[in-house]
């Protein structure tokens, strides 16, 4: 098992994220370590002890990040260091070690010892400041202490608030750090994350190779997560669109209440499948803590069967007809109509013509309730597979949107995430060629057939391309 002591002695790059209290050190660690279990708070002293976040591949540590408490009595530490016998630059780290040894167990310096210990043991320094607040001379004391440690170092400008004092900070930090980078852990994209790692690799020659390996590993991991997300979305699509819900009835024909119960059960089951799928995506992207905060689910405010959902994620009437025709869906359905099996699409067209977009994309034509004969006089109602032509696009659009928000969501983010007002239509992320590929599978599922393997492969490919495009 990995222990803190072991991590400090082994020969792999280590980085201590240090700074003034409440400047976003934990947010940066959380974002870089892809771990949302880190406690992030607006109360200074949220981080009380250092915590190592090793990047391990098959158990082998590639690098390790340390989240540390903020400086509390920096002036006293520097004062102690200055009071010691003057030493040459190469011995200054020993003086810091001596400070740690002398004050271990001294409650006044718990925080300083926690943050300085990994550094004197070889960790690189990542000094975090909030560039949305003005620079102050009090920071110089901290930077001076870090200079005593003699380790490779860089500064990160974290813009927590709305104001911007980046220039002020840059000119001050430039005196103490060879490298100054801007990184917002809340908004950082995967690419920015990789760029920051790349900067960290340049701090020390020996660290370049392992960090490059780490970058490759993280890029592979990102691709795997995209693939897993796509697989999960497609599995859910197949499950939902082919789902058939049955309900036992007492008489020869169903009462209105029985029919309503059936429809309600059908809807609830599908909503349940969507929730399961969302949870799955959150696990894939390691956002396990999302459930801890109420109202955090991306699409909670827009119900799957709502008209809002249909108008945001569904296809327009025109695109629906073009997609259906290009994939042969309408032809197939025409045959169904002749056989008396499916007047739903026709109903949609009429509804669309009469009631406008709402009727076309709405859910008045969701159900085709059948009464099935059963043995010994028992009868049951059934609904499904899903016959609404637009529903697959609504479901897929919602899944894609949710996956996108989760995939792009920083692990440092702790607030609510809600559907933005930005325009997001399945039409925009799925061009007509891709929709044609999707429609083939939708047609099979609508008929109650299993989609062909090559069609499913093409489906996944189209979805993956759209997802990657959005990422």
């Amino acid at each position, binding site marked *: *098992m*990995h222990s803190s002591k072991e991590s400090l002695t082994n020969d792999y790059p280590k980085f201590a994220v240090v700074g*003034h*209290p*409440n400047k976003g050190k934990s947010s940066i660690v959380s974002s*870089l*370590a*892809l*771990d949302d*279990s*880190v*406690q992030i*708070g*607006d*109360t*200074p*002293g*949220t*981080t*009380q*002890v250092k*915590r*190592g*976040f*090793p*990047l*391990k*591949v*098959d*158990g082998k540590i590639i690098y390790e990040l340390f*989240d540390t408490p*903020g*400086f*509390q*009595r*920096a*002036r*006293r530490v520097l*004062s102690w260091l200055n009071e010691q016998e003057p030493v040459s630059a190469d011995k200054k780290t020993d003086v810091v070690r001596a400070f740690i040894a002398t004050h271990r167990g001294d409650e*006044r310096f718990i*925080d300083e010892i926690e943050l300085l210990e990994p550094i004197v043991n070889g960790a690189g320094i990542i000094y975090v400041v*909030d560039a949305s*607040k*003005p620079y*102050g*001379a*009090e920071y110089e*004391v901290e930077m001076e202490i870090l200079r005593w440690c003699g380790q490779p170092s860089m500064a990160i400008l974290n813009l927590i*608030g709305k*104001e911007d004092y980046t220039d002020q900070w840059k000119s001050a930090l430039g005196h103490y750090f060879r490298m100054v980078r801007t990184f917002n852990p809340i908004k950082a994209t995967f690419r920015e994350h990789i760029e920051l790692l790349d900067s960290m690799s340049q701090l020390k020659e020996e660290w370049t190779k392992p960090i490059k390996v780490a970058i490759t*590993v*993280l890029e*592979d*991991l990102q691709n*795997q997560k995209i693939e*897993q997300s796509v*697989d999960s979305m497609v599995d859910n699509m197949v499950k939902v669109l082919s789902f058939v819900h049955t309900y036992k009835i007492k008489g020869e024909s169903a009462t209105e209440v029985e029919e309503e119960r059936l429809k309600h059960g059908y809807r609830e089951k599908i909503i349940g499948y969507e929730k399961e799928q969302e949870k799955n995506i959150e696990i894939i992207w390691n956002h396990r803590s999302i459930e801890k905060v109420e109202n955090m689910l991306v699409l909670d405010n827009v119900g799957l069967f709502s008209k809002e959902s249909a108008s945001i994620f569904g296809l327009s009437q025109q695109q629906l007809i073009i997609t259906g025709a290009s994939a042969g869906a309408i032809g197939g359905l025409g045959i169904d109509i002749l056989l008396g099996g499916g007047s739903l699409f026709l109903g949609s067209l009429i509804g669309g013509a009469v009631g406008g977009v709402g009727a076309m994309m709405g859910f008045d034509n969701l159900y085709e309730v059948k009464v099935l004969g059963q043995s010994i006089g028992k009868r049951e109602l059934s609904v499904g597979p899903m016959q609404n032509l637009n529903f697959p696009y609504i479901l897929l659009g919602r899944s894609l949107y949710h996956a996108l928000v989760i995939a792009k969501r920083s692990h440092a983010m702790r607030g609510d995430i809600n559907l933005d007002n930005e325009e997001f239509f399945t039409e925009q992320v799925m061009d007509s060629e891709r929709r044609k590929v999707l429609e083939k599978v939708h047609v099979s599922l609508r008929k*109650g*057939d*299993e989609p062909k393997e090559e069609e499913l492969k093409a489906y996944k490919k189209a979805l993956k391309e759209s997802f990657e495009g959005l990422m």
Partner: protein
Amino acid sequence: MQIKNHKISIESYLNFSELLNEYRGTHEENRLFALKHEELFSNSKQILLAWMNKNDFRKKENSDNQNILNKFSTLGNFIGLFSLIFGFLAGLGLLSYSGHAPVNVIYYLLFAMFIPVASMLISMVSLLSSGTVFNALSLFFPLHWIETILGFFSFKDKIDVANNLFSTELKKWMFMSRLQLFSLLFSVGLLFALLVIVVSKDIAFSWSTTLHVTDIGFFKLLACIGFPWGHTLPSAIPSVELIEMSHYYRLGENLNSQMIQNADKLGAWWKYLAMVTLFYAIFLRFLLWLATRYGYREQLEKDFLELDGVQKLLREFKTPFVSTEAPKVEKHLKIVEENDEQVAHVVARVYDTIVGWNFSEDEILLVNDSRDISSSNISSVGGNNSFKEDQEVAKGASKVVILYVKSWEPPTMDFIDFVEELLANADVHEVQVYPLGTVGRNYESDEREISIWKRKIQGLKSKKVWVIDA
């Protein structure tokens, strides 16, 4: 290392499915397992079987699989035996000879060749079809009806449970394979009946049809049917003479004289009938059974690899396990809620002492000007000042002190040390901590920042110190 290629059986399929419902392991565990079994890396099936064997103990103790399989086996044996006996009885019925009218070989050929060939053709079409077409075609097979009837027996539920575990395609191959086996057993029964009758009775064969078929025409048809063995076993093809003498007309009151004169030769048909049964009903059926058996095995393996959770397992075997989380669980800090104790909402115009924490003297003057606050004793502490300088300021403070702080910079212990020194000064009656925002915000601080200061100051539990929230 040589890898033993274990075949997937229906039992391992069911066990694996059950295990996956119970347990799928974590990525870390599965990757570790794969690294320990590197020799199986290239063989998905074998590595999955090895994983299954390792984790077999995790299955529920009261597994129903063996029970289901036993029921299946019993049901299969029963239908198999039934088919064999039914074939034998059908053969006895077809070949029953009372001594008056001879046995019409055309009846027999219908059961021994035409029906089996038609059934095999429908089987092959069924194998190529799916969904509704397959369901419609399966209505032609007696096995479908036998299984439907057996479905009403007490173990129906068990069979239903097992059936739900199989894909439609696998069920199709299972059904077709069973169908071929039972048809084969039926034909064996039929052949056995033929041999028993031939040995135990003197039986006269004839042929008779309403259609206008000449003896030569009939001979050509039979020779064509017997083509597969005609060259190697010519005696098992009826001669033109035999066909002529076996031609039976229904209008004759009795057997014609030619038939009676050659009664000893009419039995020669049996070799031909036996070969027809052997080749068409048994040999071809056997080949089809082997083909469906192969198809079933292939489908079983395919389904095995498509069981829910298998692709995830395989991916986890092959993908390096990357972890970035901290092994040490963080002890979460309990946030103390602030209250309105020690909070002042009004700022006085004049103070006895003004002290700025991390403010330069110029900055303090700017704040005074902006907030219209004045004092005769103004000092700067913190920042680059030394402790000695700070101590002097603390000692020199008196009566009511206003302490400017940067609202966005959370209170450090260094600050608290200074406040405690101020409070220790008996001349100081009251310390008012005034959190100020940035110049850009006109020194206004937000609620969140004030809240942090309130909590910290309340933690000092001193009645002399206040936070200004104006």
